[in-house]
């Protein structure tokens, strides 16, 4: 990529950067997109241009894609759904609790 006139067809002399964007102070950063840049300075300049010029960002994180550790193998052979928030239905538990309480009241009033 640099200098651009010495670049052979299909040659890559640049780094892919991932850009994360914070919309307002205190909010979590979210992935905004990626950039191809020769080095960190170019990446910062382009990130500003692509993701910050219209006042849409409070701050940016610009990270070489290589620096990101990806984890994607998750084992749950025994289907232990209590590990997951959706494995525990609060609605059901509440219903049962109310019914128990109702029965207890009826029994007491007898």
């Amino acid at each position: 990529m640099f200098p651009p006139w010495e670049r052979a067809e299909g040659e890559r002399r640049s780094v892919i950067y991932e850009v994360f964007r914070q919309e307002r102070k205190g909010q979590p950063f979210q992935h905004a997109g990626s950039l191809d840049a020769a080095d960190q300075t170019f990446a910062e300049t382009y990130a500003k241009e692509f993701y910050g010029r219209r006042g849409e960002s409070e701050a940016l994180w610009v990270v070489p894609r290589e620096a990101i550790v990806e984890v994607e193998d998750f084992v749950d052979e025994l289907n232990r759904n209590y590990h997951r928030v959706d494995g525990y239905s609060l609605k059901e538990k509440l219903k049962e609790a109310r019914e128990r309480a109702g029965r207890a009241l009826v029994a007491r009033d007898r």
Partner: protein
Amino acid sequence: MNEQDARSLLEIADDELILGWRDSEWTGIAPFLEEDVAFSSIAQNEIGHARALYELVAREGGTTADELAFDRPPEEYRCSALVERRFLDWEQTIARHYLYETADEGRLQELKASGDPEVAGLAAKIDREEAYHRMHARMWFDRLKDEQRFTAALEELRPLLDAGRDQHTPELAELWEEMTMVRRSQPAGTRW
């Protein structure tokens, strides 16, 4: 606004209009996508600055920004020879960008100190956008400063900074033809 301010605003406006036009010639054919977007955006900014500057000068002179920008004959433009040239080489384009932004910084500093609050205010506004242009120009400079093709372009173009504003290259007249074509072909009764 004093005469000195008006003259210098018109010089800057002409520089920014012509440079914006020249830079926009790279839209779609810059060396890579990210640079295409960034450089096109810089070109747009320059034309935006020209418009704001023309508006300020026009108000003083009882004319309009469009008339100042497009209805003067090319020989009356006050732009620098540096911005007039059409470059087909990226290293020349970037060398000009670097030379221009560096010189423009000093000029804006002077205008920011103007006694006229409107002039000073506009200069400050423009300077805040130019800061991004300078960052962009500097990153390219740092990257290419040891490249012979780039340093040769810098040496070739540097004298144009002091070449004066009374004589123009034939390239300005060519650009003027292109730039004002639609306006000059205005059918009777058209109002912009």
